[in-house]
């Protein structure tokens, strides 16, 4: 059975830029897919296609079992969208915003009103309910935006960079809300530039770059793909580099990388903590003084670099280009 979100061969070009270059996705019901990539990778465009905001040049997509291109209005009943530019009316109060969205989801005025009260309570906005959203902090606005996306408890949710620009405390708060939501069975597609966020929230991750999915799998699978664990050693004196290299070559499962000026040596290993203890004993036996040693597991950052040849943040300078909602930067 196809997932709650299913897309095949999505292509979308803006002028010369191929924003989507054949994107395939499948998100099983009740799971979270993290779409991970730098600005301009095609994340937002993917979300916009799936939420009926733009039509792809080719390809097909179903959301909640409904064909996105044939029955966009049916799809709109079943989805909630929370964008990276908190789309709430800043001159309306929190309550007025939610009530308006409820009514536009075709709820009766009374139901929309009642639902607004519920959501304001749940998102800790009850105290600010009757203040214009203009007076809200960044975190409050995001929560209001998220609440607006949840007015009808849609079975499928899309969140486009939900925590971009939030401070760590607000980010953690928003993560908690998202996890609660997913715990209740909502299917979620989430885009992010933060590897940590995808790691934290997503069951599956699709790494996108230049409009293509370049890797997919669970966080662990993607990490395993970059070669697993490594031992990293920083020795105290330059003349200790050579004996340390010999030790690591003996214990490790590959070539030893050496950075001379920082006196740092790295080698892929298997065997975890037990092996680390053996390495320490060996180095000690050779009289090597250790400044720092650790077992390093690859982060998604490493995954991204090994897949794309550049770090996920490297395109952050293109931020401006994606300022206008709907325009993915061409980077």
């Amino acid at each position, binding site marked *: 059975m196809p997932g709650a979100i299913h897309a095949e061969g999505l292509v979308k070009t803006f002028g010369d830029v191929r924003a989507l270059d054949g994107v395939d996705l499948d998100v099983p019901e009740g799971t979270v897919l993290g779409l991970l990539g730098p600005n301009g990778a095609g994340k937002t465009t993917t979300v916009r296609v799936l939420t009926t905001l733009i039509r792809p040049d080719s390809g097909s997509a179903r959301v909640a079992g409904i064909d996105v291109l044939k029955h966009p209005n049916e799809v709109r009943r079943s989805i909630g969208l929370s964008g990276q530019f908190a789309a709430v009316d800043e001159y309306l109060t929190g309550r007025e915003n939610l009530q308006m969205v409820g009514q536009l989801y075709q709820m009766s005025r009374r139901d929309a009103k009642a639902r607004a009260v519920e959501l304001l309570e749940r998102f800790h906005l009850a105290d600010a309910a009757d203040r214009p959203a203009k007076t809200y902090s960044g975190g409050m606005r995001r929560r209001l935006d998220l609440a607006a996306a949840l007015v009808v408890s849609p079975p499928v949710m899309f969140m486009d960079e939900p925590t971009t620009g939030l401070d760590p405390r607000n980010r953690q708060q928003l993560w908690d809300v998202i996890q609660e939501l997913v715990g209740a069975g909502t299917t979620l597609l989430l885009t992010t530039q933060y590897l940590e966020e995808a790691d934290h929230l997503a069951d599956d991750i699709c790494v996108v770059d230049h409009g293509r999915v370049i890797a997919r799998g669970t966080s662990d699978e993607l990490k395993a793909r970059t070669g697993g664990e490594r031992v990293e050693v920083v020795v105290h004196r330059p003349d200790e580099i050579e004996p340390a290299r010999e030790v690591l070559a003996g214990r490790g499962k590959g070539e030893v990388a050496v950075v001379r000026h920082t006196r740092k040596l790295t080698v892929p290993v298997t065997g975890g903590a037990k092996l680390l203890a053996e390495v320490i004993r060996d180095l000690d036996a050779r009289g090597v003084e250790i400044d720092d040693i650790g077992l390093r597991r690859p982060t998604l950052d490493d995954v991204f670099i090994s897949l794309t040849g550049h770090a996920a943040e490297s395109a952050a300078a293109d931020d401006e280009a994606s300022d206008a*909602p709907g325009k993915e930067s061409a980077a």
Partner: protein
Amino acid sequence: MTTTTTPAARPLAPRPRGGVAQSLADSLVVARRNIIRLTRIPEMIVFGIVQPVMFVVLFSYVFGGSISVGGSLSASDYREFLMAGIFAQTVTFATAGAGAGIADDMHKGLIDRFRSLPMARGAVLTGRTLADLVQTTLTLVVLALVALLVGWRTHTNAAEVLAGFALLLLLGYAFSWIGALIGLSVRTPEAATSGGLIWLFPLTFVSNAFVPAENMPTFLRHIAEWNPFSATVQASRELFGNLPPGYVTPDAWPMQNAVLASVLWSVLIITVFRTLAVRKYRSASA
């Protein structure tokens, strides 16, 4: 379409009613939102009123007495002649408001929010233009009071005067659809404001609004007489009884049949620009 139902799927949005009833309901929800905004930014209303009031005062006292209307150089005749022109120019300035408002909604991502909702497609724009109509009405009421203060009078019955204002409001409503299309087509609210105003100056000046068209060179006179804007000015002047005694109505068809021409022009503008704007709204996003 019910092939998938997740546990969380219980309260799906109610099935849209569709059709005219839903369009109207959705438009009113959006109109209400825009009117609430207006009350929270009262300076928008104030500036909208100050400008035409300034025009009333400037034109009546600076030009009054130097412009011949129907052979009369009387300042009070000119003042009466002028008012319909200022009223008409004022209602067309709704274009800039609608344009800037919609461009701002695009910019802030609100249009995305609306477009992802199961709402009637034209409702965001219709709601906006209806709210503009409310604002224009308010402006026009204040302006008419100021006009009365500086000596403007009508010389017809109440029904005709109301009909005159109705034509002005219809013109304003039509122009806010032009604004809607501009707002959807530009990148920033600032561009929408200037894009909504610049062409209004030649349009409203090459017309019979401030001076009688018959004083213009032949080429401009033809343009002025067929200018959609002139038809409404002429029609409301007739309905207010503001044409000076010696005034001879030009032979051009829209001037001879000003009320009909005014309605036709406005309906045509609404039809064309509403169609274009709704199409743009559906496909385009930023």
